[in-house]
């Protein structure tokens, strides 16, 4: 094998090229300058952001939208610590990222050198794995291992910390082969296939069930298994509810869709789960926002759980048939198994689906409409209309996030991006920029809160600089709305530190960055501004939707409570204490 001789920094670029990287996001500084010098000639796009957190969310949004590994680069010390929230966000949602950080030169490590931080120590619990490069000979292998670990098994972020002197050092090197990468990680062997005995057992339970529900999570999206989920649901005629992260794994306009379950799930999804006799969990992890009170979650159901991560299985709830494996692979086998011995699926589901239809009619997903004041839900519905239901939506965290989840109907995987696990305010807009860069053919909307958007507002400059024509819809309620809602419901309407009484003029703010700013204050203007926004395709457009300030997200199952205690309809503020009735 022929050996080349290069600088560490150039080796980094070479490995990125060999991994098929087409975009990196980041911001330079002393310890990473050599790498930036090499990036200057790199044959891929290098996006300079205005904050490393935004860079991390951009790489994350890029990864979520494309399925590829996102790459983020930062300098040592403060650059690296600014990645922390972004890495934790990606870690919680199992998003494949590779973060490359500069570190002080080796002989300075441990001396409290300028811009030194123990980045390996800090990021250990929020990465799937991390590496400190201590010898340039290891550099190509470590970088390849990082990509391999990030994208295989249960995906996640991997950080590689490279001391500056290694990036400057010149060495002979060669890029290791796939085989060598695998062999170098003897302890890392994700189970993908699924145990055939367990798959048979699962099929038997499905055949016998009379009230089954498919509960589909982000794992189905990550494993690109939407097609298989659809096939399974259609074959067996089983209704499907998805988590926030599972959105798009099953088309929400399909009659079998129950939409989202859990804290802000639909009445009919939660009723179906509560009454189910079989729950088929697919790439979902029984998060507390989904289950509510764990002892009353699907209380009578047998549970099948398909997941690539053995640690996710029986973590919070004991399941009957665990299947460890890649969702797509396992579903293919399960479908085959079911097809080998079909039953009368249509007849078997008749009464169950009829019951579900009744629930759907009794409490559809809805809200009180108004022609005087803009209802946030109406904005989401109108975004759905003007984009023909085809846009990628990226949300911040709060009420607007939940409305974006509930009132836009998702039809394909990787269409709804949001920080489901960590709940990171400030995620939505930069993630939208990353998504638009990765999927330029799609309309990408950031649905943002006035609180959330401000947390990464500086990166409007990045979107303008690289002419990334994302749309930003600010659901401006002048509040940290979700916290206000909880205060209204559970803290006697004591609105402590939630009123955003001073805000920038969002239109002028956008304009000052060189983006377009629009505003709607009346329901009649909503469609108009959206149509206008859709016509602008050479730069970002921000729309400030001034909405009903105290609208609430409903239905709601209060944290840690049973689905029985779901709050369904809005009531007067004074009745806050009696908002929910114990069944």
């Amino acid at each position, binding site marked *: 094998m022929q050996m080349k001789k290069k600088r560490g920094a150039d080796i980094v670029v070479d490995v990125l090229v060999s991994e098929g990287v087409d975009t990196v996001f980041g911001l330079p500084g002393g310890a990473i300058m050599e790498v930036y010098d090499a990036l200057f000639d790199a044959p891929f796009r290098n996006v300079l952001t205005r904050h490393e957190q935004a860079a991390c969310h951009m790489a994350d949004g890029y990864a979520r939208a494309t399925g590829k590994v996102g790459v983020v680069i930062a300098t040592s010390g403060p650059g690296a610590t600014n990645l922390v929230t972004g890495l934790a966000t990606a870690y919680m949602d199992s998003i494949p990222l590779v973060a490359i950080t500069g570190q002080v030169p080796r002989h300075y490590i441990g001396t409290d050198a300028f811009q030194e931080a123990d980045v390996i120590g800090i990021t*250990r619990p929020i990465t799937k794995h991390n590496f400190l490069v201590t010898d340039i000979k290891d550099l190509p292998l470590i970088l390849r291992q990082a990509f391999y670990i990030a994208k295989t098994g249960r995906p996640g972020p991997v950080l590689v910390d490279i001391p500056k002197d290694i990036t400057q050092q010149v060495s002979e090197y060669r890029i290791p082969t796939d085989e060598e990468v695998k062999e170098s990680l003897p302890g890392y062997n994700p189970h993908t296939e699924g145990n055939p005995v367990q798959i048979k057992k699962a099929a038997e339970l499905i055949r016998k069930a009379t009230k089954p529900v498919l509960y589909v999570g982000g794992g189905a999206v990550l494993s690109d298994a939407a097609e298989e989920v659809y096939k399974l649901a259609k074959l067996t005629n089983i209704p499907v509810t998805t988590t926030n992260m599972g959105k798009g794994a099953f088309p929400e306009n399909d009659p079998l869709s129950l939409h989202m379950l859990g804290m802000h799930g639909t009445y009919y999804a939660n*009723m179906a789960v509560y009454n189910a006799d079989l729950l088929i969990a697919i790439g979902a992890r029984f998060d507390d926002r989904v289950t509510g009170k764990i*002892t009353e979650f699907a209380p009578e159901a047998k549970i099948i759980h398909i997941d690539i991560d053995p640690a996710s299985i029986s973590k919070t709830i004991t399941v009957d048939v665990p299947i460890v494996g890649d969702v797509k692979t396992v579903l293919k086998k399960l479908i085959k198994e079911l097809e080998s011995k079909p039953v009368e699926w249509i007849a078997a589901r008749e009464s169950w689906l009829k019951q579900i239809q009744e629930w759907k009619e009794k409490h559809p997903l809805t809200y009180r409409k108004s022609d005087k004041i803009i209802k946030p839900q109406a904005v989401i519905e109108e975004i759905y209309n003007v984009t023909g239901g085809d846009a990628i939506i990226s949300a911040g965290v709060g009420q607007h996030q939940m409305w974006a989840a509930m009132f836009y109907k998702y039809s394909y995987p990787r269409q709804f991006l949001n920080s489901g696990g960590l709940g990171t305010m400030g995620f939505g807009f930069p993630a939208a920029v990353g998504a638009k860069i990765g999927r330029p053919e799609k309309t990408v909307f950031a649905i943002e809160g006035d609180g959330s958007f401000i947390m990464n507002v500086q990166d409007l400059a990045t979107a303008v600089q690289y002419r990334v024509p994302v749309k930003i819809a600010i659901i401006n309620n002048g509040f940290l709305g979700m916290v206000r809602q909880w205060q209204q419901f559970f803290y006697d309407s004591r609105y402590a530190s939630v009123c955003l009484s001073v805000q920038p003029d969002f239109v002028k703010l956008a304009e000052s960055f060189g983006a377009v700013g629009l505003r709607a204050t009346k329901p009649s203007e909503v469609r108009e501004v959206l149509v206008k926004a859709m016509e602008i395709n050479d730069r970002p457009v921000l729309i400030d939707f001034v909405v009903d300030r105290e609208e609430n997200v409903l239905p709601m199952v209060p944290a840690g409570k049973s*689905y029985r205690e*779901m709050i369904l309809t809005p009531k007067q503020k004074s009745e806050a204490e009696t908002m929910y009735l114990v069944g």
Partner: protein
Amino acid sequence: MQDIKVVKTRPEPEKKIGKHIITVKVQHNFGVLARITGLFAGRGYNIESLTVGRTHEPNIARITIVVEGEERVVEQIIKQLRKLIETLKVRDITDLPHIERELALIKIHTENDRARDEIMRLVNIFRGKVVDVSQESYTVEITGDNDKIEAFIDLIRPFGIKEMARTGTLAMVRESAASKEGVLD
């Protein structure tokens, strides 16, 4: 919401608390120990003891961890250990026939000749060794399983323990039983 009248609950598995001995084979990279201890600390799991050392294989270390906890928590610990990229093998050997050893160094106050005699007697019974002697103390080395060491400590405590260091438990599955049960894969 008053649609659900009858409260139904999932049967809860009974909570079993017990001591577990977990052996972990890892790639001996730097930072691997921090990864393992961090996993316990970050999740609030309590470690009773943890020992690390090299093995006969190059770059492979073996860790023995003793934890006391609820069944489900211990199961989660084991899964999390397996998830670490650098772990090669994780086993809960609690219920397998195994050998357990710990070494303790104990500096015991020696008040007078009677105390010296009595301590020597106990050391002999426990098949320990006196490894250092001074005017006022014996330093004793003792090995055995946890129970034996605890028993010894209880007996010599009245003399006055000046200092003590323990290695924590090392454990290994017994070959005969292991091969019989086919657990050595």
